[in-house]
């Protein structure tokens, strides 16, 4: 019997689930094989890790809620013998009456009404930002505004587009090898170009009329890696990147919290040509409560994504 690297035997061996003969064989093999000994040690460590995990407890009132639901179900009124059949008969009569009235009405072609389809409320996808460095706003990072300049900007303006007003444009540039002063026209064009380049940047502070939470539609592995990295960095975790088949799927990342508003995805609906993300807006109850930056859903690939707020 070959025991070398036989993980099925090792697993059962650790649980004492082998017959005596096989157990002896495994034990003897482990005495002489360092590699297999190492594997068994690792399996044992993983088992210990799992068995010593904290027990996750439900919120208070969990059991009481279950019992209350059970009580509601058991308090249904069961009609005595004659009453039950009377109610069935009454239901049948109502159905017959409705059918009779319906059939009596002359058939007419329903009027065709055209309704205007509202404009979709989804935002376009945009580039995924890299993990945020501390002390520098995302917009400032994109605009390459240095931390020295950032120190001079009032706090209330740091997270908004106003930070762009502090963008230092080059005073001189090289033209055909010679240093020349940059004209005012060129300076304006430079700023405008930078503004346009980050115009799609998703920040609720920029767009106060925003009706949807900031979101990203991820359609390739590179962006997927970036958003996952943001999730890990923000929460000080190092979880492995899950595999997504971007040939048939895409990821939707929705901001969990912005400007004291918590966004919660309630439902994802897949339609023929679009994905509908139904979400709720809730007030942030605990300001210092840790949260993950994005809620991520993997869905089938569709051209459009629509966001619908539900109450």
């Amino acid at each position, binding site marked *: 019997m070959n025991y070398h690297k036989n993980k099925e035997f090792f697993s059962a061996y650790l649980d004492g*689930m082998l017959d005596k003969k096989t157990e002896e064989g495994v034990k003897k093999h482990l005495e002489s094989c360092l590699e297999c000994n190492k594997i068994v040690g690792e399996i044992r460590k993983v088992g210990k890790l*799992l068995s010593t995990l*904290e027990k996750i407890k439900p919120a*208070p009132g969990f059991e009481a809620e279950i019992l209350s639901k059970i009580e509601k179900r058991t308090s249904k009124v*069961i009609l005595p013998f004659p009453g039950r059949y009377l109610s069935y008969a009454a239901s049948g009569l109502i159905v017959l009456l409705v059918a009779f009235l319906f059939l009596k009405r002359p058939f007419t072609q329903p009027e065709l009404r055209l309704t205007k389809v509202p404009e979709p409320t989804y935002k376009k996808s945009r580039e995924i930002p890299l993990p945020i460095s501390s002390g520098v706003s995302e917009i400032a990072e994109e605009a390459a505004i240095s931390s020295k300049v950032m120190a001079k900007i009032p706090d209330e303006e740091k997270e908004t587009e106003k930070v762009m007003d502090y963008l230092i444009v080059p005073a001189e540039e090289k033209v055909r090898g010679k240093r020349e002063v940059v004209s005012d026209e060129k300076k304006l064009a430079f700023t405008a170009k930078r503004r346009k380049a980050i115009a799609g940047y998703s920040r609720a502070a920029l767009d106060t009329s925003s009706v949807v939470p900031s979101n990203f539609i991820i359609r390739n592995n590179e962006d997927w890696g970036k958003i996952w990295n943001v999730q890990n960095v923000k*929460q000080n975790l190092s979880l492995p990147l*899950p595999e997504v088949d971007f040939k048939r799927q895409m990821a939707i990342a929705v901001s969990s919290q912005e400007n004291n508003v918590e966004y919660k995805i309630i439902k994802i609906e*897949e339609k023929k040509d679009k994905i509908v993300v139904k979400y709720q807006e809730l007030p942030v109850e605990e300001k210092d409560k840790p*949260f*993950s930056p994005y809620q991520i859903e993997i869905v089938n690939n569709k051209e459009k994504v629509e966001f619908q707020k539900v109450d």
Partner: protein
Amino acid sequence: MKNGLQFSTSRQQSFEKIVWQEGKKIYNVAYRLCGNADEAKDIAQETFLRAFKNFHRFEGRSHIYTYLYRITCNVWKNSLRRKKRHRVFPFSSLNPEGKEIDPPDPSLSPDKVLERKEKSSLVQGYLQSLLPSERLIIVLRDIEGRSYKEIARILKCRLGTVKSRLAHARENLRIKLLPHLERLK
């Protein structure tokens, strides 16, 4: 019995006792399976509601937790089937709030408490990356400590199947956790 919803008072009282005794255990299992606090609550509630509905059929031949675990597994599998179209990565629930974990041991330093939370989150993350069948068997054996025989009864499969599935699941998890094993002692 004409109506499954009508029970004798003593049976109802027995079930109430079971909810208080096993409720937290079932919630913990549901959480480790789905990785999400809200979903775990729904699964656990549905488990007890179904268990109560069919309680008149429970003859006591197996332990009550076998009966409950089986229902939990079925409810969870049904929820997976419903979510088949899209996977959810409830990152936030990987860091359950303080109220969901045992109150911190006052003898532990804040660093140790944080270390335990991080360990729980990291391991849960890797659990979520396993296939559902692998995750289920790891939860039942390595987290809940059920015997092979109990697991075979819960999953309604042979002992040999439990052995091979468990070995496979442990191997997959071992490979994923390998870079972190030294740190997570």
